[in-house]
């Protein structure tokens, strides 16, 4: 019995009906179970080889910056170059995610890396990301034991390592990927963050100021597409399509 019965009674009175019949309930349950996408704009149905370009174009419009590297081996140097160019210390807080172990961090001894959730003193964070959505230049970040969400919001500078093959077309594609990865319920992590550019506000005289309460800068290091057969995510994406 729901604690909302008194509210449901008012709703039913307004709608001029009693509780739904079992057949009606079954239809509504089926609608949820189907979770069918509605209209997906043509822009989001971009061919696969154009997705990264669209993602980058849309993300750059809102102030996201990019670096491209041919392999994971090149990520530490790209990160150090980014930090140096902006006069930032080579000290960062990184997701304690084994996925990031494929990157040879010790190749750049100048980088001081701590792993864990973000604290007030952290100026730079680095995280992997679950997917990216081309239609609006949006990163999709999920929380779990290896991916604390504070890293996406507390530090001034947020650096994301993205594999080109994880760029999807539409928001719905990101949810399809989540559903496929967790066929058991619940498939939703505690937090899913859609991030589109660094934080901003227009609350003072409608003037856009970047760097409100979240990161002032958002930088994406893209590891370019490798042979398609290598990528588990890619295969998953295929299954969905």
């Amino acid at each position: 019995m729901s604690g909302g019965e008194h509210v449901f009674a008012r709703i039913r009175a307004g709608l001029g009906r009693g509780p739904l019949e079992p057949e009606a309930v079954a239809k509504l349950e089926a609608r949820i179970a189907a979770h069918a996408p509605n209209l997906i704009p043509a822009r989001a149905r971009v061919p696969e080889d154009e997705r990264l370009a669209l993602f980058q174009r849309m993300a750059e419009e809102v102030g996201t910056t990019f670096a491209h590297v041919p392999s994971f081996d090149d990520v530490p140097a790209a990160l150090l170059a980014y930090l140096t160019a902006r006069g930032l210390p080579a000290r960062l807080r990184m997701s304690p995610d084994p996925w990031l172990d494929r990157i040879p961090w010790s190749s750049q001894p100048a980088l001081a890396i701590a792993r864990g959730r973000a604290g007030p003193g952290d100026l730079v964070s680095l995280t992997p990301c679950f997917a990216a959505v081309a239609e609006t230049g949006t990163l999709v970040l999920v929380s779990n034991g290896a991916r604390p969400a504070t890293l996406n919001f507390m530090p001034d500078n947020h650096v994301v390592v993205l594999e080109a093959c994880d760029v999807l077309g539409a928001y719905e594609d990101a949810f399809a990927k989540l559903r496929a990865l967790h066929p058991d319920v619940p498939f939703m992590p505690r937090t899913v963050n859609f991030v589109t550019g660094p934080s901003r506000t227009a609350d003072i005289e409608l003037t856009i100021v970047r760097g409100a309460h979240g990161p002032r800068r958002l930088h994406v290091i893209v590891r370019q597409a490798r042979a398609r057969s290598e990528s588990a995510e890619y295969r998953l994406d295929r299954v969905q399509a």
Partner: protein
Amino acid sequence: MQDATLRGALKRMETGFGASRAAAVARLPEFDELRDRAVEIRNHVLANLDFYLERFEREVIAQGGQVHWCATAREARETILSLCRKAGAKTATKGKSMVAEEIALNPFLEANGIQPIETDLGEYVIQLAEQPPSHIIVPAVHLSKEQIADLFAEHHAQYGKTERLTEAQALVAEAREIMRQKYLDADVGITGANFLIAETGTTIIATNEGNGDLTQMLPKMHIVIASIEKVLPTLEDACTLLRLLARSATGQEFTCYTTFSTGPKRPDDLDGPDEFHVVLLDNGRSAMLGTELQDALRCIRCGACLNDCPVYRSVGGHAYGWVYPGPIGAAIDPHFIGLEEAYDLPAASSFCGKCESVCPLRIPLPGIMRYWREQAFERKIAPAPQRAGIRLWAWVARRPALYRIGSRIAVAMLAKLAGRKGRFARLPLAGGWTAARDLPAPEGRTFADRWRTETRRRAS
């Protein structure tokens, strides 16, 4: 209208969000089709609201959260207070929430010894100014940079900030710095919700500043306050609505942050709240179902109808007198605070139809305002002089010759009385109107006269 600052702010609105919205809509050819789908989704939800809310509750509980049903604003305030007390809270950070404004949560928490801290920059500014929001999306849009600089100088001295800042960038940076410690110190974080997902028990906020996220992830308790009509069946349905929301609100392709929250912190999570509570508020919404007002429950609070409304852009948000300003306020405020209190809102419409044309959910706002006007007349809510006036007008209007002569005399007299300024700051019988706005005087000729001249001119 003597208020030069307000005039400056309203001037900015003219080139602000409305124009950005039009540009964003033009970039998405499917926009109108998305509106149709969104209308279908929302109508479907409203017709089955009991089912979707029950499913939502079940999923929140399955994820380890709790749902609190509140029929009235008072119940919602008391529920939130008791949750704050349970958490032993001295302060509660708050993300931007119109429903929290609707239930007047801040003064209630303060009166009961809990300090609410608004973290959205605009909400923070109006909290310092001790004013209500004047816009759904940009609550401090009526204040100038100079006024905000004064407020910060006055209130930030206690944090050792003695320099009066004048640049927007610097003001934002100072608020950011001060707010950091407050996020960390708070025991409770309160946010609203743009949508609720029945399928997964998820709550969604769409923001730009990142304050809503820090508000909900750092304290040990996250309370979501949301009204019952915010529920959607699936995440896919949310995708359709989200494609409309930012474009309609600010003309952005998408908000910086769209956050999907499902339950409290998981066992191996390194951050997130230990407790997750959703306070679901009816507050008269169920009574809108099955009435002329039902369509207004499709509203996603984007503010597009305000940005493009000639009345809102002339008088600003505070002139509406309650939480929801603009055309949507004129349509729903009479229901929430009573027609006796709000009958002049639907009356103050030019019926230009702009609001309905930009509403992403195609809410028939002028139609609803017309309904309220009729109600006010039938229920004899408008003051007697006004009702007598309308009856007199109706009698005269059925006699065209008399109407022409009468209106010429009235228009000429009013124009003369108003003098060179062409506006009344005060007018007998119109005090309610002129307290927060001017009444423009007619320019000396009647519409019928001008129409005749104009048609003659064009014919020749």
